[in-house]
Structures are given as C-alpha cells and as structure tokens.
C-alpha cells in the first residue's frame, strides 16, 4: 500500500497508578479467548497471559516495597521476533502493530526465544473450555489450536471494528473510541491507549512525559509502549 496509514497505535502504562489488581489480565483473558490457566500450567511455566503483572521487591527488609509492572507485547518498531520467523507469521503492519498470523504459524518457536519481553505464548495443548464457558468465547477472535504461537495485538479485532465504523461515517477513529480490553478494564486508568499520529490524542500528549521510559530500551528493539516511572518520595528517583 502506497498510502501511509493514518494510525500508529501505542500504549502508555503509568506505573504510578498501577495497583497490581490484575483486572487487565482477566479482561484480556476473556476478550481474547486465551486458554484457561490451571495450576499445572503455572507450575510447568506454560501459563498464557498476554498481559501479566510482574511483581518485584525494592529495597531491603524492613524498608521493602512491592512493585508492579504490567508487561504486554511492546509492539516493537524493530521487533526481534519478526526477522526470525521463517514463514512471516509475525510481521509489522502499517499501524505499528506486531501481528501474529495464526493460520500461517507453523510453531518453530524461534520468535518466543528471541523476544526479550517474554510476551509470546505457545499452545502446548489444544485449548479446552468447560461446557459452561463455550458460549462466552469471543466470536471476533480466532481460537488458537495447538502448536502455534499467540500474543497481544492491542485487541486488533476492536481496532478493526472501530475502523469500519469510522470508515462508514467517513472519518478517522476518534481518540478513546477504540480501547483494548485491558485499558477498558483498568480501574485506575493506569493504561492509556491511542493513536500517536493524532497529536491531540491522550497517548500522544503523554509521549514527552518527563517520567516516561521504554522497557529494555537498551536492547534496541524500539518498544512502542511507553512506561511512566513510579513517583515515590521515600525512595530516590
């Protein structure tokens, strides 16, 4: 396509607002038909959480604090997962999303090895849902079969829907019109989603925030998700 896209999606994660409540994790799980994680899948390190809350400790006992950081696919500009896929099952689209093409994936898992954020998940088994949950599956999202990778795509199904509505009305998607499930569910508004090509969007205005940083920026992946540092008067920085 010669026409440059009008959109470049991004997310801002304000660590200062994050309470680690995991509402985003649950919302994502429900929206994206992610297989149920049972105890065994956690013990064998095969749990799937497209967005997860990492918890870590800061300081020495007794001055110790629990910290949370939500980690999701950073939709890297220079994503390490993309060049290693032999079949182009993962690639960058014009809207800045790192998309995973489920029917194309053969499951070599090189992308997962090469992802520094560990946000790519492999379907070790055929996912099953109890009978009572089958009708809760989201029809807009493919149910992934065994043997393929899956990952966060900023709820691309919602973006596509929003774009269709906008196209029908002959306009661009408005700021806040399309929200990924995690952003929608966040009770403290720690997550902000938007189009950085729209200078008026909330996300755009946060881009130059003094607390902003990118996760593992030093690896050169060019992450598309901006994190805002924790404000903590008790600790320096």
């Amino acid at each position: 396509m010669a026409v440059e896209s009008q959109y470049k999606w991004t997310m801002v994660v304000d660590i200062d607002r994050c309470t680690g409540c995991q509402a985003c994790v649950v919302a994502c799980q429900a929206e994206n038909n992610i297989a149920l994680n049972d105890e065994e899948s956690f013990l064998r390190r095969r749990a799937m959480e497209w967005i997860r809350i990492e918890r870590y400790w800061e300081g020495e006992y007794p001055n110790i604090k629990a910290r949370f950081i939500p980690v999701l696919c950073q939709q890297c500009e220079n994503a390490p997962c993309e060049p290693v896929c032999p079949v182009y099952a993962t690639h960058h689209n014009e809207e800045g999303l790192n998309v995973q093409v489920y029917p194309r994936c053969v499951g070599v898992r090189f992308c997962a090895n090469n992802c520094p954020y560990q946000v790519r998940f492999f379907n070790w088994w055929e996912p099953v849902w109890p009978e009572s949950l089958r009708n809760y599956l989201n029809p807009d999202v493919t149910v992934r079969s065994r043997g393929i990778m899956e990952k966060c795509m900023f709820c691309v199904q919602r973006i596509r829907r929003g774009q269709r509505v906008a196209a029908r009305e002959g306009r661009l998607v408005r700021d806040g019109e399309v929200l990924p499930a995690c952003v929608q569910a966040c009770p403290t508004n720690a997550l902000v989603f938007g189009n950085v090509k729209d200078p008026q969007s909330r996300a755009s205005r946060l881009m130059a925030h003094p607390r902003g940083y990118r996760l593992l920026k030093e690896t050169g992946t060019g992450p598309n998700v901006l994190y805002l540092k924790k404000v903590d008067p008790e600790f320096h920085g």
Partner: protein
Amino acid sequence: MEARERLTEAQINEDLLGPTLRTPRWFWPVAGFLASVVLAGAVSFGLMINRGLGLTGLNRPVMWGAFITTFVFWVGISHAGVMISSILRLAQAEWRRPVTRAAELLTVFALSTAALFPLIHVGRPWRLMYWFLPYDFPRMVWPNVRSPLIWDPAAIFTYLTGASLFVFIALLPDFALARDRTRGWRHKLYSVVSLGFRGSLRQWKLQAIAGILLSALILPVFVSVHSIVSWDFAVAMSVEGWHATIFAPYFVIGAVHSGVAAVVTIMALMLWLFGWKRYIRSEHFDSLGKLELAVGIGWFYFFFLEFVFGMVSLEGAELALKDMQMFQWPWSLLFGIFIVTAFFIPIPLWMFRRVRRSILAMFLISISVNIGMWFERFLIIVPGLARKQPFAFTWGSYAPQPVELIIVAASFALVLLGLLLFTRLFPPIPIYDMKEGQVLHKDIKVGRSTVPGIARE
C-alpha cells in the same frame, strides 16, 4: 609401519562384496531391534501430533530443547563425510581409502535424520508447506528469507544433494562390479544404478574427475552448513550465550570433532561385524586418532575463546550465565560430563600411539566424544534460554520428557538402521578404491628397512 599384505583382486572382491551378497546371521535380529526403536519414535511423534507439544518438557522460557540439540548433533556428525572424503582426497592422504565411504554414508544418513528434527520439533508439522515448499503462487505469499530457519533447509538440502552425489559417484564402479557378479533382482538393481558403467578408460576418467570436482565444490558447502546452523542461535539477540560472533567456526570445528569420532565408531563396528581386519587396520585408527587430536585441540581452543569472550565482555547476564552453566546444579553435572568426555578423556589418550592403535580403546573414546558433544550442544542451547532475560519471574528450567528421549533414541537407531540396510545392498568399503591403492602400492627402501609407500606420477 606394519607390512601390508598384497591382496589379489579376486580376494578383495570376495572379502568386500561377500558380506553384502550373503546376509550375516546377526543381521535380521539387529535390524529388527533397531526398526522397533525407530517405530517407537514414530509412535511418540504421532502422539505428539495428536496431543500437542505439551508432552515434551518444553516451557515458556525454554522453547527449544532436546530436539534442536539432537538436530545440531546430527548435522555435526554429518560433517565427517566431507572432512574425510573430500579433504583427504584432495590432500591425497593414502590411508583414507577404506574410510571414505563409511564417512560419506554417515553424512547422508546423519543429515537425513537431522533434517527430520525440525519437522518433529515444530508445533504444526502439517503446515510445513509454508516453510519448505514456498511455491504459493495463488496467494503470492512467500517465506521470510531473513530468517535463519530458511537458510537452514537451503544449506542442509544443498549439502545432502552434494553428499549423495559424492556417494553415488564413488559407488559407480562398485555397482558395475556387483552387477557382473550377481543374478536375479540384484543384477537388475545394479544394472540400473550403475548407469552403464563398463570400465572403459573414458568412464574411469570421468568418474575420477567427477570425484575430484565434487570434493572441491562441496568444501564451501561443508563450511557453510554448520555455520548456518550456528546462526540459528547466533542471530538471536535476546538469548544470553547465543549471540556470539565466534559461533560459526566454533560449530564447524565442533562438528568435525564429533563427526570424525563417529567415523571411528562406525569403522570399529564394520571391522568387528564383517571381520575386515585386512582392510581396516590399526594404522587407519592411528591416522584418524592423529587427525582427531588436531581437530579436538582446535575445537577446545574455540570453546575456550568463546568463554574468554564472554568473560571479557564483563556483561552481568553473560557472566551469570557462565556461572550457571559451570557451577550451578544440575547444569554443573552436565558441564562436568561434557568437558570430561569431550576433551579430558580423549585428548590425553589420543597422544599415546598404543591407544590410537587399539581398536577397542578408539571405539570407546569415540563414543565418549560424542556423548560429550551432545551435552555441549545441550549446554549451548538450554541454559541460555532457561535464564533468558531480566524478568526474574520467567526464568525456568527444562528436563526432557519420555517422548523426547524416545525420539532422540530413535534417531540413533534410524541412522544405524540406514547404514545397516545400506550394507545389505551396497559394499560399505570402496572396492575399486582399495584396488587402486593396491596398484599404487610400492615398497620403498629407506635405509635398511622396507616401508610401504605409494607410487604416483
């Protein structure tokens, strides 16, 4: 050097072609056993397709495990053939003659087995047409040539084609020989595969030229194959311990180390199974031992350099990874097994002439080297993944599960079975080459003693 027996052509024909035309008594039980192991592997693979890769021990940080280790292992073994055949042929090393075909066959069978592993390893083997057969004209969607996983099949299939041609060219005169001495279906088979080789001067000349040309042409492929396999890891920026620039030569020389050792194993087995003590003599093991001594020390140098580069970088994660590989349980155990079996057992022992000339000792050492080299690949692949990145929550470990172990065992059985079945149809020692050696053979007087030498223009 011990004096060599002069053998008549009829004697050579009888000795080398005999075991091919008459099935030894041990053959079918052994082949049956190997086939059942292969079958167990096939069943495990079927189970994995049916249930999913959850049957393996792989998990989120460790996405690659025993299958990729074994893949690299077999590609490594396959480097023996060209090393022995092509390099020694070009160097006109006389002792290569009985060794060459065994080495080439090992290349072909090890490489074919290695090529199976990516298929076993992937999540959806039934979608492989997107990967290996990129002729998707209706959709015009092609594979990603930036991925080392596309370079890999290209390198392997080139090498496999070259190595098969190599074996075939060298087999032509032997096919013709077998054709003239058999009847029935064997005669028909040999007639077809010998492509009308009648032993005219022109045919011999063409055959010799083809052999030399292939030797020269396959050398760059030989270097490229394991280099490309090493790039499966070396281009991965996110895994500590993988992205080392030294990987390509380090892998190639490691491959030769394990490959030549595997040739020693096969030679000893051939000697014992077919009783060819007049053809495979301790001087061959002596020469292979000397070659291995040089290769093994060279390999250790690269291994050491890789370590030093890791240390010199003073990168925290890299140092922590090396610490884990060497000192943390259970990696330390694997590391100990690896370094002892691949280096500290073989290298000092190969320095002794008596060890190099003892076939049993060489056999056991060669197996020890390959045990060590399997663990070497495992220690390169798995620990780096197990503690990949700075998010402590996602570190993990990995232990191969029964399906993986069965499939790995089946791969060994498959290679052995392939070699065994091959000896049923074709002679595993190049008969014409042995005769050529006999013709060129000359006793040279050095001072008072007479030593066997070679007459060449």
